[in-house]
């Protein structure tokens, strides 16, 4: 739990592609469509790949916030059932 936002935060700093994406994907699949998830991912390769993959899977990134060497993304779970 992140104190500032009061939300679940998936901290994937230091986790490489595509493992970081798989963690997010599995978490989002357990959530209802429209629910939100905050994740922390590194700049560079993760920021190039993960957002594109999330869009392909039908999820939506609501906000992007730079925080030093990493980024905080707020993701809205899409309807991925079936």
């Amino acid at each position, binding site marked *: 739990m992140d104190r500032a936002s009061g939300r679940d935060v998936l901290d994937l700093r230091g986790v490489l592609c595509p493992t970081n994406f798989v963690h997010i994907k599995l978490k989002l699949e357990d959530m209802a469509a429209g629910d939100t998830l905050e994740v922390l991912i590194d*700049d560079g390769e993760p*920021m*190039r790949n993960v*957002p*594109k993959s999330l*869009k*392909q899977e039908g999820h*939506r*990134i*609501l*906000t*992007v916030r*730079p925080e030093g060497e990493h*980024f905080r993304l707020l993701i809205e779970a899409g309807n991925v059932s079936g």
Partner: protein
Amino acid sequence: MVDSSESGMEGLKANLRKESRRLKLNFDELKSGGFIKQTQKDLFTVRLRCPGGSVTSERLRKASEIAEKYGRGEVHLTVRQSVEIPYVSYVHFDAVAEELRAVNWSVASCGARVRVPTACAGCSYNPNGLVDTQGLCAEVDRRYFGTPTGHHKFKISFSGCPIDCFRTRDMDLGFQGVVEPALAEDLCNGCTLCVKACEDKSLRMVDDLPVRDKNRCVGCGDCVKVCPVDAMKVARRGWLARVGGRHGKHPLFAYEIANYLTDDQVYALIEATLGWYQKHGEGRERIGAAIVRVGLEKYVDDVVRPLGLETVETAAERRKYWSGGNLYGQG
């Protein structure tokens, strides 16, 4: 010194002519290629026609059957996506051709002809794919397969995106998928993901909106694919054309000559380029050597401009597509 392999080949040809009368071999079909002489006496490699490397399971079973019946129970997967059956004796050519006809299949082209085109999976299932490489590759094969050039081989390839896995720069003609992005400013929320996604650093934020430098953008479409609010859109989609590439003993790096071609413009460029090569090529030179000899400008004036294509004109326009390396003694 007598070239023994040459006389050996002559002997083999004479033997083949004799045998062919007995076997009623269609020599024109044979010469159009597909049967490649091996080191071993009387043995040939049968090169199968696999445009874009797509082969049905039915045809694969047939290749397997032929390899077991007439070869040594093995196939070779070539660098240009073909399935080859090695160790087939020329006495079985007719039987092999008959077996292939049973699954509506045939051998590939060799010699001074348009070869079977190659292609990646393209947009059919590759997430990077921007265009239908497989569809256009199949149609180009249907239209131009085996067309004689009068000079040398002619290779065509299709890549679905600027990653260019199918090495369009090494082809006599290469076609690579591109998209031109355009921003719907009213939809953009300024998230900067497109700037992050762009490997070519062609986007930067100006007043909370991404601005594109087209002198850097190679048209990969990653900015469109990442945009969470679909503000970055595809303004145009088409093919970047390259001409004059080859590998081999003396490689040439192809020139980008025109951009955003439609499928119909691809056919038109292939036809006009083949006509130009037949007319202006000398001896056994590849089209790249002919272009180097007469000058790229002449090829562009003769072929590209009359088709009304969007030309890529200058070295400065081409520079963004590559990043240096060994220029073969030029620096």
